[in-house]
């Protein structure tokens, strides 16, 4: 049995230490409808961007027989990217890298000038969330009605509205997912196949995936994507400075805030009448009057809200407005106004890098070869001794013809004077030191080439040689380094 002393010790109560929760509970945001200049700009952006997204796969482009007629198509099956008259091969995927770099610098550039303008206006998360919120508002009403509806116990009317909303969301999400796959497969034929149940599993899987992500991210997650999931707000602080134009509350003018009745004097108080409209319209549910915050996506809807209120109470608009931090501080200190300086080292650097990367890509694109050659030597066996003593190496020669016409190219080798070429296959003519290879349009022609030298001329060990192809007109030319291996010393 336990000793009484230990029992007592064990029983000594300790103060309980409540553990803080690991996750903050989500406060559901019910953004209120607002109208105004920035709302109109956001609607216009939304229409243009969604229009582009849904329409682009349907653009047709005649490339002649044997090639897809879709203007923009990333054909993973055949490993080609079709962009109007430009065809990108897998070897040229660095153009994609280039566009990603351009996108990154473009984002930095825009951020250093105008803050999170990408987040507020053009980010897909913002655009689709805006669309989903509009649908929600059409079905469930504005902020107050939605809050009331959510507080109500379940009823037939509530169930109908909720079902209607989620059905509409899922329909939009499915259209989004559907449009996504059209960038990778022929749009008109695939659309028919999808509805007939004839499309491939991949197509259904990706439509399903993007339907699910659109529905969840734009319908349910919304501002949480920006606040918790997206890395961009985390490092935007490095892109912004006191000269970046961001959404600001003019504290020097607005404070002290307080309710205002018509006819009251405006002396000794700020212009902010604490109507809370800027908070109600905010899609991320923050109060812009608390200053710049990580949750603010810079959409400018609070500007529209405040402008409405200021016009109603007859005070100058612009209490919440686009402004720089430097100008804010100057106004706060009642010192000379600080003008906006869009040209500063940071923006110059970003603009310079943008120009350089764009220039490199343009030059690369302009000089891009439509003929390429790769040569791979057979290493098993390393070399072959023929019955008359000659030494022979064999090579897999691949000629890339990026043109849409069949080509004839002449193959020759340098660095092995007495070499004789031999071939296997029906697409080759010629013998001796050169040969003519026939390459089909838009394909990689593969040829087996034998290079034979007399025993007396065979190198001891390996000897560098160069394969060259050029076409009749001389406009396409490519070479590839290889080695010829002879018996060791």
């Amino acid at each position, binding site marked *: 049995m*336990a000793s009484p002393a230990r029992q007592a010790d064990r029983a000594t109560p300790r103060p309980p230490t409540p553990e803080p929760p690991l996750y903050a509970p989500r406060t559901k945001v019910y953004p209120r409808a607002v109208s105004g200049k920035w709302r109109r700009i956001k609607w216009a952006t939304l229409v243009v961007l969604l229009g582009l997204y849904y329409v682009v796969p349907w653009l047709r482009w005649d490339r002649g027989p044997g090639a897809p007629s879709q203007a923009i198509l990333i054909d993973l099956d055949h490993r080609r990217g079709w962009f109007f008259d430009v065809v990108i091969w897998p070897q040229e995927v660095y153009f994609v890298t280039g566009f990603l770099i351009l996108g990154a610098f473009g984002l930095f550039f825009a951020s250093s000038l105008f803050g999170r303008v990408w987040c507020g206006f053009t980010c897909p998360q913002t655009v689709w969330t805006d669309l989903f919120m509009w649908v929600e508002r059409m079905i469930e009403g504005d902020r107050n009605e939605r809050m009331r509806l959510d507080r109500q116990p379940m009823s037939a009317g509530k169930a109908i509205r909720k079902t209607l909303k989620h059905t509409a969301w899922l329909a939009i999400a499915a259209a989004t997912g559907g449009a996504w796959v059209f960038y990778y497969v022929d749009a008109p034929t695939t659309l028919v196949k999808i509805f007939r149940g004839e499309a491939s599993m991949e197509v259904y899987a990706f439509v399903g995936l993007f339907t699910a992500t659109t529905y969840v991210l734009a319908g349910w997650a919304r501002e949480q994507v920006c606040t918790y999931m997206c890395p961009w707000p985390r490092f935007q602080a490095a892109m912004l400075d006191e000269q970046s134009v961001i959404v600001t509350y003019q504290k020097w003018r607005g404070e002290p805030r307080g309710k205002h009745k018509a006819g009251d004097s405006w002396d000794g108080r700020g212009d902010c009448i604490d109507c809370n409209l800027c908070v109600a319209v905010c899609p991320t549910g923050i109060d812009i009057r608390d200053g710049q915050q990580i949750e603010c996506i810079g959409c400018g809807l609070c500007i529209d809200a405040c402008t409405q209120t200021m016009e109603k109470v007859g005070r100058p608009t612009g209490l919440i407005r686009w402004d720089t931090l430097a100008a804010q501080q100057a106004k706060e200190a009642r010192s000379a106004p600080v003008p906006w300086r869009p040209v500063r080292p940071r923006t110059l650097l970003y603009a310079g890098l943008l120009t350089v990367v764009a220039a490199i890509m343009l030059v690369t694109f302009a000089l891009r070869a439509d003929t390429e050659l790769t040569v791979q030597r057979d290493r*098993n066996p390393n070399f072959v001794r023929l019955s008359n003593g000659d030494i022979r190496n064999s090579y897999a020669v691949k000629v890339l013809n990026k043109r849409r016409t069949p080509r004839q190219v002449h193959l020759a080798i340098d660095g092995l004077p007495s070499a004789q070429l031999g071939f296997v296959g029906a697409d080759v003519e010629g013998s001796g030191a050169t040969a003519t290879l026939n390459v089909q349009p838009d394909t990689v022609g593969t040829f087996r080439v034998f290079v034979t030298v007399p025993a007396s001329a065979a190198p001891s060990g390996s000897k560098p040689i160069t394969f060259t192809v050029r076409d009749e007109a001389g406009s396409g030319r490519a070479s590839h380094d290889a080695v010829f291996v002879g018996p060791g010393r």
Partner: protein
Amino acid sequence: MPTKIEKDTLSGQNTTGHEWDGVKELNTPLPTWWVYTFYATIAFAVVYCALYPSWPWLTGHTQGLLGYSSRAELRQELSAQAKERAGFVDRIRAASLADIRKDPELFNFAMAGGRSAFQTNCMQCHGAGGGGSTGFPNLVDDDWIWGGSIDQIYATIEHGIRNSDDKSRQSMMPRFGVDGLLTGAQVAAVTDYVLSLSGKAKATPEGAKIFEEQCVACHKAGGKGDQELGAPNLSDGIWLYGGSRDAIYRSIFYARNGSMPAWSGRLDEATMKMLAVYVHSLGGAR
């Protein structure tokens, strides 16, 4: 000896009620989610056993309600694949070997199919690249024992060499030394003569005379060989069993009669045709 269950003040959990010399045991049950996952796996196993083959029995195993068998599934996949390729395979079967080589599309298909069949059936002896090794001919060079035309290669693949197939390529080199046809000294003399054909030794009149009497019938004058009889060319630089004096001596003394299986019973006609095209393309084409 369970006594009474108490609440532990420190952890806030119940004890099991067991106590040994004042030491009590906390009751820390498995997490609920774990327990239910465990139950779910048991349920899954029961359903699985009912649906799929599972329990071994003395003479076999339970078949399961779905009648599934991995062998049947493989058969299905193979026949689906054969169906997919049927178009090309039928064309290969119908075309002559020469025609296959002239049609780039058929040629490419035959090369791919031939390479794959070679890696499965031939590389064990002839090497992954067809380079061969001692006793197993090099298929990449231009020296052919039974002929290097594509039709000859096809015939060799189809019927093999020195096996029980009716149309197998047949010939036999006598065991000159073992069977006492020649003495050791005579074998040595003819070895020198054979080496002299490629300029590697000085021939003696005796060696020349023995070669004339014993070897010329198959290996022909000057040791040029005869592909009809599978008698190798002895005057070139290529030696199937080694070109050293010792190796040639052994070849004459013990004789060499390598064999190759007939593939007609194991591979279908189209596969053998593709193999012939592939082997012919390795470089020895005549």
